[in-house]
């Protein structure tokens, strides 16, 4: 594995320009003061109730995601490149989805294999021929980005279903501004606080034609026991919209209503944080108590907009991921600005052969897995784990892809033994409405707190940082 790209220090002892002021500040600030602020931050998070639930963990059902008080900083110039690349990528994702559920030019052109679409459980035949307002499928995208050198941004994963984490981006900033006003005064940090406004106007802009002039938007949550419930309530609050559960909604004459103290009230746009499978027990899983019976027929009738659309999983599927550079070129006729991680498709015999021979060097992921579960990190795995995985892989090669172990970039992070570099990634949030695509400057930086660890997922011991884009 190559040496990780250090976002603060240039090999040889110099500092990258974006970090110079932070470094000066760190020198002036005694470690105890930093530790004190760290504890204060933790207290604030707990009091605000910014917690998440860990599934399969009965001991403490509500946990805090560790917050690291050292910000991750990027220059405005770097951000400019990233922003352009993200817009390009999300545009291609939307065009791909429109195509897959309509004309299927890309399949006829032989760029993406048919069986990868039609035999994919996240492909939704219900969406065939279904019109969605302004052809926007992915209204909210969370694109996971990593850096391995100073030049390139690499997409690790596209999240086009119900990406979460934006509440941490917003709350981390709030808390940082409260704890370190002096540090902010010494930087020009681009603000992130307009995200809720932009989200609301994006959602309003895609209301169905049958909606009234002031479309009613609601956020659909699986409920208080969902791991991201805090975020759902936080966003509903910031957007000033109702936070509804399935049982609050009812479908009548193919229109969706919420039960209010004044009777039924029509809903036009649902920002849903419930997975496809659970949306409508009449169409998808009949045992789902989280959904709304009849929602899909109201959707088919064009009386409700779901954000994100149903069936977007086909665009962020890990098997499709490896085709993204071609997908960008196919629809936009442009070279992709953001790179992909080199990916071996285990469904292809040649790739599988390579993967089986190099298991101890590769990261092997389940095509349909998420949250860092069910993956093999070759260099960190024992022989026995690798052998067990090899059998799994041979049994069902089409269920896996493999990638080289990336040396994720590092940022200075508070640890028990003082500041030390830790690996980070970044999830910016891309909003697409009827007219424009917007990205607030920043995103959620996740950091692997354990020394040497590359797993940044909060469910596996990752933490978060505030992400600063300097306004130059």
């Amino acid at each position: 594995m190559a040496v990780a790209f250090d976002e603060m220090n240039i090999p040889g002892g110099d500092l990258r320009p974006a970090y110079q002021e932070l470094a000066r500040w760190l020198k002036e600030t005694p470690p105890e003061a930093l530790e004190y602020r760290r504890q204060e931050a933790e207290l604030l998070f707990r009091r605000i109730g910014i917690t998440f639930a860990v599934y399969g963990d009965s001991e403490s059902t509500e946990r805090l995601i560790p917050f690291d008080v050292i910000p991750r900083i990027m220059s405005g110039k770097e951000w400019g490149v990233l922003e352009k690349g993200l817009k390009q990528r999300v545009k291609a994702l939307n065009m791909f989805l429109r195509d897959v559920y309509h004309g299927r030019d890309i399949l006829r052109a032989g760029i993406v294999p048919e069986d990868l679409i039609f035999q994919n459980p996240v492909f939704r035949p219900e969406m065939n021929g279904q019109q969605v307002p302004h052809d926007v499928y992915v209204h909210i995208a969370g694109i996971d980005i990593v850096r391995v050198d100073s030049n390139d941004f690499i997409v690790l994963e596209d999240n086009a279903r119900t990406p979460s984490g934006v509440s941490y981006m917003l709350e981390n900033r709030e808390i940082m501004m409260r704890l370190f006003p002096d540090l902010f005064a010494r930087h020009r940090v681009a603000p992130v606080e307009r995200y809720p406004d932009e989200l609301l106007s994006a959602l309003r802009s895609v209301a169905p034609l049958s909606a009234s002039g002031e479309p009613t938007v609601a956020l659909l949550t699986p409920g208080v026991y969902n791991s991201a419930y805090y975020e759902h309530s936080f966003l509903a609050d910031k957007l000033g919209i109702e936070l509804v559960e399935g049982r609050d909604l009812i479908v009548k004459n193919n229109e969706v209503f919420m039960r209010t103290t004044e009777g039924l009230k029509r809903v036009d746009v649902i920002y849903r944080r419930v997975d496809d499978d659970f949306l409508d027990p009449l169409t998808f899983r009949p045992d789902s108590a989280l959904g709304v019976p009849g929602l899909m027929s109201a959707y088919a009738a064009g009386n409700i907009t779901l954000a994100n659309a149903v069936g977007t999983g086909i665009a962020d599927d890990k098997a499709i991921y490896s085709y993204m550079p071609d997908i960008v070129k196919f629809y936009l006729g442009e070279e992709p600005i953001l790179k992909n991680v080199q990916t071996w498709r285990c469904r292809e015999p040649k790739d599988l052969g390579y993967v089986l021979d190099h298991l101890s060097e590769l990261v092997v992921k389940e095509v349909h897995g998420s949250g860092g579960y069910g993956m093999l990190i070759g260099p960190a795995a024992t022989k026995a784990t690798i052998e067990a995985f090899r059998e799994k892989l041979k049994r069902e090669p089409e269920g896996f892809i493999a990638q080289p172990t990336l040396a994720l970039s590092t940022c200075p992070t508070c640890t028990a033994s003082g500041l030390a570099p830790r690996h980070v990634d970044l999830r910016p949030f891309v909003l697409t409405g009827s007219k424009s695509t917007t990205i607030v400057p920043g995103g959620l930086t996740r950091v692997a707190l354990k020394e040497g660890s590359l797993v940044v997922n909060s469910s596996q011991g990752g933490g978060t940082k505030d992400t600063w884009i300097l306004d130059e």
Partner: protein
Amino acid sequence: MLSRTAENLYWLARYVERAEYLARTIDATLRVTALPAAYIGKTNEWDSALLTAGVAASFYQTYEEANEHNVVDYLSFSVDNPSSIRNCIEAARLNSRSVRTALTSEMWDTINSAWIELQAVWSKGTSTREDLAKFLRFVQETSLRFDGSAYRTMLRNDAYWFSRLGLHLERADNTARILDVKYHVLLPEEEHVGGPLDFYQWSSILRSVSALTAYHWVYRETLKPWLVADLLILNSTLPRSLASCYDNLVRNLDQIGVAYGRQGPAQRHARGIRNRLEHSNMNDIFQHGVHEFIQEFITDNSRLGEIITKQYLI
């Protein structure tokens, strides 16, 4: 607003009010039982505490006899008692989480901090009287803070009114129950009332509804049962009296009616109860029988809860 949100706000307020009432009941009972037996008579004060909390039946399924130790535990910390203080705070927190968007940050902070403290400090109950006193103060202060934050920070819209409905309905129920228990169980009507023995009983009732000082201000008299009853039933200047609760319930329901542009059975029913209270005097109530009067009130009051639920919350 969403019916579910209104329902959660309504129950949230009820749980907080109930927790405070339980804390006050325990507090008052501790004071009475600290007196020499000659001052309080032969009654089991802990038994009557269970009755006023409305959990005597479930308590005796587990315990043979009521004493300080097991009643304090049952009312405060028991996981099995659905309306123990602990469960009230747990339920209030769960309700708060589901309606966070309808709460102000001050209200959320109050409930969330109380819940954190409950787990961090009080998860094992209390072992000394001093600890218990601290715990009871914590519960009462939580309720005061919650009520105060709601009053000072909430928009005056349906969210506020539904939460007030829960508060006043619960409060009316609690006041009615404590009066009933003391009158009916401890002092059968034929028994002479007003002797020195009763002084401590009555002051403990007043204490449990935080009205001891108020009594002296209003009547400038020694404690007399009919005046205590007058204060707690008919005196609309006392916030915990039935009359005051119903003034508030009628007002809040009217505000909802105006905002929504229509009235319904809840408004009519609440007005009916208020009118009856307005046109009653203590002589009539005593003639009719205090117990009967209060029993009717309790039934009417919980009927109002059902009507509100049907009209707005489902």
